[in-house]
């Protein structure tokens, strides 16, 4: 499977969906970017929000993509759970908003 792009640019160029600032989608759209970093699909993993204790799958997080990086927030308390910034030759992944990720794997 094709996992990574050959180069990159910060998230969105000019005119990126300029309508409502509250635009969000969900963590399903993180699948491609996280596959560059992890060997497994992390969107099916679940974790507990450090802010409110709510457990959600990564796919179910509230995802803001109209930003210099990807920011996934807890649907319960809006706290930041995960952040991913993709530079030209590096990515930064911040998972401080989740205590631990539980990742389903083949036995």
């Amino acid at each position: 499977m094709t996992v990574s792009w050959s180069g990159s640019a910060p998230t969105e160029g000019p005119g990126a969906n300029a309508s409502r600032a509250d635009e969000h989608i969900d963590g399903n759209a993180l699948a491609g970017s996280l596959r560059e970093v992890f060997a497994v699909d992390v969107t099916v993993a679940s974790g507990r929000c450090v802010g409110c204790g709510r457990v959600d799958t990564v796919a179910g997080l509230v995802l803001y993509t109209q930003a210099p990086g990807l920011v996934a927030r807890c649907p319960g308390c809006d706290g930041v759970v995960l952040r991913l910034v993709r530079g030209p030759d590096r990515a930064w992944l911040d998972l401080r908003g989740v205590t631990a990720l539980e990742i389903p794997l083949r036995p």
Partner: protein
Amino acid sequence: MARLAAVRDETPTARTLVLDVPDWPGHLAGQHVDVRLTAADGYSTQRSFSIASAPSGDGQVELTVQRVAGGEVSPYLADVFAVDDPVELRGPVGGWFVWRPEDPSPVVLVAGGSGIVPLMAMIRTRAGVGSRVPFRLVYSVRAPEDVIYADELRRRTRDDRGLDVAYVYSRQTPEGWPRPPGRIGLATLAEHGWPPDFAPACFVCGPTAFVETAADILVAQGHEPRRIKTERFGPTGPVASGG
């Protein structure tokens, strides 16, 4: 590097792209791809698109693109992208919003506008494996001409055993429609979905606001939140995950 093999117009604003993807490993119904476009000056942007086709084993993948007025990517893919042109594609990705044929649970599919695309992949996959799992689709559009796959859905409700489709028209109804136009509500899902005690797997896809409304209705109906899987497109259509 994928290449456009063929196109198919679905509605005045939606077009299916049939892509040849070398070394395509296959996919599950509901997964998506990230498509990246690069201009000659190096500017690039990307969008996620749900895979519309069932796994076929022939290295071809279909995406259905809805042209978004004022959009940056969809007008290119719907109008300019030509047969034999290359396009960068990443995937398949997304293991959450998927339907697996091994799951015996009945299925409720709720689509808003272009949210029908991944759900159609599920319907096509079901037919491809000869599954009898009962599927109920509730498909909300603005007007009759916005129904993507209209003919195919008509044919499938006739020929695929156990598939039922109900339409919701939010702005304009077909001739002779017994109800005025309206948005999806509890009554529609109560009548055309599965009752909660059937414990169906629910898949909801479309613009963010539609998905959140529909998911709230399913929860209010009594479905377990864990049985409801959602995929939000941006308010104007799929939005890329960046990178």
